[in-house]
């Protein structure tokens, strides 16, 4: 028998609940784990060693990054195991302990790759990994399952996307597809087992809107990083060499100190990118978790999308880069794409559906609670953009964040 909703709420209030959290070394998972710990909750965190770092080293580096006080760390226990394996590759005894101890599960672990070439790995993480976690939930005394999904389970569609289980057979990529399948799986299993379920569907999550801090620099960061790489590349060519490579691409220094990078970016009349900061996501998650003992599906999104034109403007102002301009699709017929534009075109091939997104994510259910608790999503304006990009540069897009980096990627 699972415990009642009231008992769950009571245990949480008394800080007796043991949360089992997956993806705790990832961007969203680590922020949730830290917030739970700061609020006095007990967290069991599943993680595995990576590169040359032990599990403990990985976690310690993360906790250092969060500057989490030791008093908050005492409620953290790390379990070394693999999500990919049945029983997480734990001994019978250790897995048995999880079955006995875990009250609630927060499943954040996910493979966020969009590439079809990585389908096997994505399915392994997002489907098989989920099933392994559900086995723990079903086999033990877990009473509530919190599943971190994505707003983009809606797949390829226009118009309104509801806060309910969705039927779709057209997806932009394998990530969307597997997350949608996963929602069905988790929903069916929790219903069958009498486990409470909340599904949280964030849009695209960036760093902290107040501090700019982040541990992950993909998605919206990628094109900015690329532009800055190109700026530095051609700036060095002009200043330190003969500038021939820059001339070849019509890259030049303007009198006002701006570097002219001729990049036309195709935009559409409508649509933009839906961005939420990690601090808002965490606040929203915690509010929804506390308030919704009956569970539900919640869009955690921004009601104001950012347009590509705005991103170009922010980038130009902050980094003194000229020449980038939005254009209509017809522009490339008159003048074919140059190498820089081909590169951005490739980026848009992957992220275009999110950058020129015309979907509207209904969020009444979430907002009914969030507005009551005064949890408001900040705009991604120039100030927030500047803070985030400055931090990204400061930590060299994550490569300088942690020790023992591997191939330029953050090791955590």
């Amino acid at each position, binding site marked *: 028998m699972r415990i009642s909703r009231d008992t769950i709420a009571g245990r949480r209030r008394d800080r007796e609940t043991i949360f089992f959290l997956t993806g705790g070394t990832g961007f969203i998972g680590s922020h949730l784990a830290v917030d739970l710990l700061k609020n006095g909750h007990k967290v069991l965190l599943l993680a595995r060693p990576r590169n040359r770092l032990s599990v403990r080293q990985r976690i310690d580096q993360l906790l250092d990054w969060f500057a989490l006080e030791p008093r908050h760390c005492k409620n953290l226990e790390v379990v070394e195991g693999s999500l990919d394996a049945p029983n997480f590759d734990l001994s019978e005894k250790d897995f048995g302990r999880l079955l006995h101890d875990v009250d609630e599960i927060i499943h954040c672990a996910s493979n966020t*790759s*969009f*590439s*079809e*070439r990585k389908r096997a790995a994505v399915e392994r993480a997002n489907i098989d990994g989920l099933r392994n976690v559900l086995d723990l939930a079903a086999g033990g005394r877990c009473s509530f399952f919190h599943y971190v999904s994505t707003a983009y389970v809606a797949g390829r569609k226009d118009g309104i996307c509801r806060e309910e289980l969705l039927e779709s057979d057209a997806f932009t*990529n394998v990530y969307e597809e597997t997350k949608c399948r996963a929602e069905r799986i988790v929903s069916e299993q929790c219903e069958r087992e009498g486990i409470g379920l909340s599904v949280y569907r964030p849009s695209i999550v960036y760093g902290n809107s107040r501090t700019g801090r982040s541990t992950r620099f*993909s998605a919206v960061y*990628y094109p900015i*990083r*690329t532009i800055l*790489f*190109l700026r530095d*590349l*051609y700036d060095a*060519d002009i200043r330190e060499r003969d500038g021939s*490579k*820059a001339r*070849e*691409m019509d890259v030049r220094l303007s009198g006002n100190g701006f570097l002219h990078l001729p990049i036309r970016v195709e935009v559409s009349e409508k649509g933009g990118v839906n961005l939420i900061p990690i601090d808002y996501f965490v606040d929203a998650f915690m509010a929804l978790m506390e308030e919704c003992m009956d569970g539900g599906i919640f869009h955690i999104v921004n009601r104001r999308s950012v347009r590509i034109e705005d991103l170009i403007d922010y980038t130009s102002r902050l980094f003194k880069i000229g020449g980038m301009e939005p254009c209509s699709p017809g522009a490339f017929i008159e003048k*074919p*794409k*140059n*190498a*820089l534009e*081909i*590169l951005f075109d*490739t*980026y848009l*091939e*992957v992220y275009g559906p999110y950058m020129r997104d015309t979907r509207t994510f209904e969020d009444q259910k979430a907002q009914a609670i969030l507005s009551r608790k005064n949890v408001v999503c900040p705009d991604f304006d120039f100030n927030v953009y500047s803070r985030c990009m400055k931090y990204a540069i400061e930590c060299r*897009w994550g490569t300088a964040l942690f020790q023992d980096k591997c*191939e*330029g*990627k953050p090791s955590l």
Partner: protein
Amino acid sequence: MAAQCRHYAMCKIDYLGTGVCASGQMKHYVSYYPQGRMDIYAALACELIPVTDALLDIADTCDLCGICDKQCHFYTEMKPSLVMAALKDYVACYREKGGNIEKPRMDNALRKLHSVVGEEWASNDPAILVTYADDPCPLTPMRMPRYVVLPRTRDEVAGIVRLAREWQMPMVVRGNGGSTAGFVFTDGIVIDLNRMKGMEIDRENWVAVVEAGVTSYDLQKEVSRQGLRINAAEPAATVCGNIICSGTFSTWINAYGTAADNMVDAEFVAPDGSTFRLGEKTAPNLFAYKHEDVPSPGICTKAHVRLHPVTEDEEGILVPFSSFEEAVAFARELSMRRIGIAIAVLGEHYLSAFTSPTEDLAVRVRPALTELLGIKYVVLVIGDRYAISAIKTMGRPVIDNALFRILALGLPRLAADEWQFFIRDLDWNHNAFELLAKENMRPLLSAILEPSPENIASAVNDPDLRDFYARLYAKPEMTDLVWLNTFRIVSARMSRHKHMFALILYVPLDKQQLIDDIMREFAGIADRHGITHHFGFLTPLDMGKRAILEYDYYCNHRDESDRKRIQEAMPELVPMIEGLCRDVKGVAWMKHIVSQGFSRKEQFLYT
């Protein structure tokens, strides 16, 4: 270092335009080349040989010009002049201390050998003998010969053979003194054919007539000057020796064929000392073949090698693949459709080793090629403009020679981390090489990789050699896929990190599963014995019906445990390969072709 000489004899050919060790060219014995001096120093260190007159002469005739450093560093990263200087120092000290100079004993046999070739060209001096006693093959122990003889003519060869027969003394023949497979050792006479350098080009008959000491590099250089080409062996291998030992296989066999295909006639000294020409009606039938080890038919002293025309529009191209199966299928399709002249499937190991001037760079380039760009295999094609044009219309991204040049000269930056994020983080559905292969991307790629001779030279750790490498890579041929395949000078780099022990088979190319199984078996045996191993290459031939497959095991030949691993793998390897040759049509083992290289390829491919 002295013991690490790979015995590729690359110090005996002028493959980098640096010139060749002067004393070696004058004295001809391998002992007077850097390769020989390395062996001698290693032997002295192990107290295997005494100090003799020849040893003193060998040390004295080295003028420490440094040519060998450039030649050897190019494919092993070693600088033999350190050993040469140490040898000279040792000799100087030895003299100063008044050490005993041992005189090899003159005997009747040596006198008779002198009477055949002249006093200068036969020796029993241990300093000479030791340089003909060993090679990096892990299966054969050192064997000191009694005599080394360097004949100049066919008749001198015949005279030596008759004497050996009369004395019932075993005898082996060496072409250029290079040896890696342990075949050329004896406790009798070693005949070194290095002095037989005659070469004539008969354009009317499309034939080059070469004596037994002519190397593939030297012949290719000459015929190339005349706008022609031969089926190229490894550059330091002698033409005659390579035909008889392997039939000469290369990427060119797709169009030129192998074994008897490339040869019009040949002259032999038979085991009884008589001579014959292959083209004579009464000659032994060397065109036939048996799937087993057979004794040598004699000593090939001259070969009439076929010449092939070259068109001015030939170009090299690389077609990248992320899977072996796709690459093999593509190579086969090209061969079946008669598109391209030279064709080969190369793996990331060869590709990175061949293009990198240092092993450190090769190691760093490998993940950039495979994990970042998705290039695990390439199909290399040399073809005329029609072939290249046809390949470009086959719907696959290609690396043409211009792009290859950008990548090759920008290799250190390609391997660097700073730019890789925009490929790695892109999360594209396609392989990254598809992006880089786009024609319009080249200016950007060029800005990122900064391809230049100085850039590729910067990968060389030794500052003394960086200028040399920058000058070398400024030569257009160093990034010209046609030239590199014609002269094959970079293939020796495959053994840079360790000696390579090659497993070479002809296989039926329409049986992909069989090829996969063979590769898996080779890999499995290697893994079981802790041997480093990599796919080598695969080249189709005879319109894609058959292919030659090379799979390489690697072994530090001076490490006894490494040698032992190979030795212990052999009882698994040999029955496996013998079984394939027996049971599967189209499989033939190169080991059996040794001594049968003059046979018709049809005899070993289709019987």
